[in-house]
């Protein structure tokens, strides 16, 4: 698996999404919980806007000085006995991890949840290297059993309900109990415990790397990252190159923003930081620690008008308020990064060719901008993507280009505009019945498949106003 998920064309993916009632119910109810939770935490904190501003400034500063902080991070991880590898591409990152696995002759790898490893397709690479990979985040574990990609960046199995999960456990692991969440979770715990104990290597992602100390930090609610990092003797962390903070102080701010914005919690049940290997005189820590810092297209975004997209701390608040995501679910986006941030990031990281529909998968309602805890201008970046698709990539449909040329001519000529305003009603007459259009032509076709469109007014406003000025036209 890599960034792109599935092979079906966009329209089919959307159709599949809207027809999946189970998924849509699950998404709507999860969105409800996340929205309420986030709002409650923001209100409770009081000066939420100041916090967002601070978050935004921290991210701006860090990205503006990313070379400096990456060097600092790398130096500090090395000082603590870790090996640091800068991977320019997904392939380089995978190859490095494969080599560690092979050298260790590792048979089993346990992982905690990580979007960047999904992005680079690390699991497939590990299997190629002959290792058995076990995802230990409950949602990821369910998906792994079911061979299903994530549909959300924080709660990856959001699209599944408990009945479906019971079914998966029964089919893949011989589970024979009820679909109560407690029983399901207990079963997963029992199964996973054996994997934790028998794993040769632990692989983690990274929520934030603290440059000043080389500490790689994870937030989880299940404690699985703590199990992954404390049991196997060989540890590997994989991080996107932008996921770092200068010092512990900024970690405090961004973690506070992340957990509140993501799941409406002041703090998750576990916040875990690990630093390098077991050094002389220390009682715990792994024998071997590797930090893989992944570029995979990120440095090309630096210094461009899209740099702020790299500010993302993967909280999914934008996904949770998105009314489009609500109707189609995550898989319809065809990228492991769905929702508004996915629609912005996917074309940047995975290319316009693969993801050209995504910037249009938004009604531009602006809900994403309102909640982003680090104030990424998602709304504006979606529009900017559209401009690039139209004006630089030349990927827009011909009919649309023609229509927009016509629009420009119409809207810059008051005479042409006036004429059309007077003629609109007549022009649409063949399709109008009782002041109503139920099966419209051209661009109205899609609209009128699910709703009516009114016939234009009998008299345009401007003509009414003119008559009124001439004297005495009643309303």
């Amino acid at each position, binding site marked *: 698996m890599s960034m792109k998920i599935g092979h079906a064309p966009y329209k089919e993916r959307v159709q599949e999404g809207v027809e999946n009632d189970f998924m849509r119910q699950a998404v709507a109810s999860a969105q409800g919980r996340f929205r309420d939770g986030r709002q409650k935490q923001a209100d409770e904190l009081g000066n939420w806007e100041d916090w967002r501003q601070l978050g935004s400034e921290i991210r701006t500063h860090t990205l503006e000085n990313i070379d400096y902080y990456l060097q600092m991070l790398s130096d500090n991880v090395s000082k603590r006995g870790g090996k640091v590898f800068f991977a320019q591409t997904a392939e380089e990152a995978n190859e490095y991890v494969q080599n560690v696995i092979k050298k260790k002759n590792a048979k089993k790898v346990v992982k905690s949840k990580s979007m960047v490893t999904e992005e680079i397709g690390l699991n497939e690479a590990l299997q190629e290297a002959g290792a058995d990979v076990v995802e230990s985040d409950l949602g990821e574990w369910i998906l792994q059993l079911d061979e299903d990609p994530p549909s959300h960046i924080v709660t990856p199995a959001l699209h599944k309900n408990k009945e479906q999960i019971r079914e998966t456990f029964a089919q893949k692991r011989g589970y024979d109990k009820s679909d109560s969440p407690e029983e399901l979770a207990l079963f997963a715990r029992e199964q996973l415990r054996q994997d934790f104990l028998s794993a040769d290597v632990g692989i983690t992602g990274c929520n934030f790397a603290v440059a000043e100390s080389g500490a790689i930090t994870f937030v989880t609610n299940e404690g699985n990252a703590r199990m992954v990092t404390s049991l196997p003797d060989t540890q590997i962390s994989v991080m996107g190159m932008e996921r770092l903070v200068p010092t512990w102080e900024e970690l405090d701010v961004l973690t506070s923003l992340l957990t509140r914005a993501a799941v409406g919690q002041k703090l998750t049940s576990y916040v875990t930081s690990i630093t390098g290997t077991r050094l002389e005189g220390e009682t715990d820590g792994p024998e071997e620690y590797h930090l893989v810092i992944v570029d995979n297209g990120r440095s090309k975004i630096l210094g461009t008008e899209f740099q702020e997209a790299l500010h993302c701390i993967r909280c999914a608040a934008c996904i949770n308020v998105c009314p489009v995501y609500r109707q189609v679910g995550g898989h319809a986006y065809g990228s492991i990064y769905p929702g508004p941030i996915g629609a912005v990031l996917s074309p940047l990281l995975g290319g316009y060719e693969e993801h050209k529909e995504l910037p249009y998968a938004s009604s*531009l309602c*602006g809900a994403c901008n309102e909640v982003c805890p680090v104030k990424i201008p998602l709304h504006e970046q979606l529009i900017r993507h559209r*401009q*690039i698709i139209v004006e630089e990539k030349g990927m827009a449909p011909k009919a649309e280009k023609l229509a927009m040329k016509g*629009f420009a001519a119409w*809207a810059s000529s008051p005479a042409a505009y006036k004429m059309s305003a007077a003629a609109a009603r007549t022009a649409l007459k063949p399709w109008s019945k009782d002041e109503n259009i139920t099966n419209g032509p051209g661009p109205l076709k*899609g609209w009128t498949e699910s709703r009516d469109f009114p016939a234009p007014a009998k008299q345009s406003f401007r003509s*009414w106003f003119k008559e009124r000025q001439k004297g005495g036209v009643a309303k």
Partner: protein
Amino acid sequence: MKVSLFITCLCDIMSSNVGKDTVEILERVGCEVDFPELQTCCGQPAYNSGYLQESKKAMKQMMKAFKDSEYVVGPSGSCVGMLREYPEVFKGDPEWEEEAKKLANKSYEITQFLVDVLGIVDVGSTFKGKVTYHPSCHMTRILGIKEQPIELLKNVQGVDFVELPIKEDCCGFGGTFAVKNSVISGEMVEEKSRHVTETEAEYLVGGDMGCLLNIGGKMQREGKNVKVAHITEILNHQS
């Protein structure tokens, strides 16, 4: 006070009554209303679709049309929101940047103008019925107008106001979004229509004709007996 009406192309052609109501409300509160005939469309359909060059042609036309206006007032949060974006669009353009700023600074959505500029929260109208209100996205999120329309509505005599569930969610209009992604848009408006029904309101009121055409068209297709009204219709209603 002299006010130039920015009718918006949608109201001009599709829903001219909204324009008439807007003029009458403004006159009733003492404004002198003119209608600059050079105005066309704010350019948003092209701008939001990625056609920057095409949209600029429309925008320049609008700047010319309202050059001499003191205040520009329109019955749409979304279209006025577009005018307010002009300075960003023409940033660094020596010929147009100043004009863009001027137009943005004097443009107001009608409820915003009544409440924030004129300080009027009661326009002295009467309207009997159970009313719910859909806060359109650009009005609330781009212009930041949240309380003004509600305050005006609640002060209309006879209005029985009910809150719309999940009111902040987009209705699925989104301009060309409703055409380009008509399937998703259709699902969004279906959910919106469901929430309107839950309120048992007789009227769905909003401040943007695009959203209202969308929600109204859906409810009509579903055979629902809920009427759709632009907020100016309620504010200009007597008896």
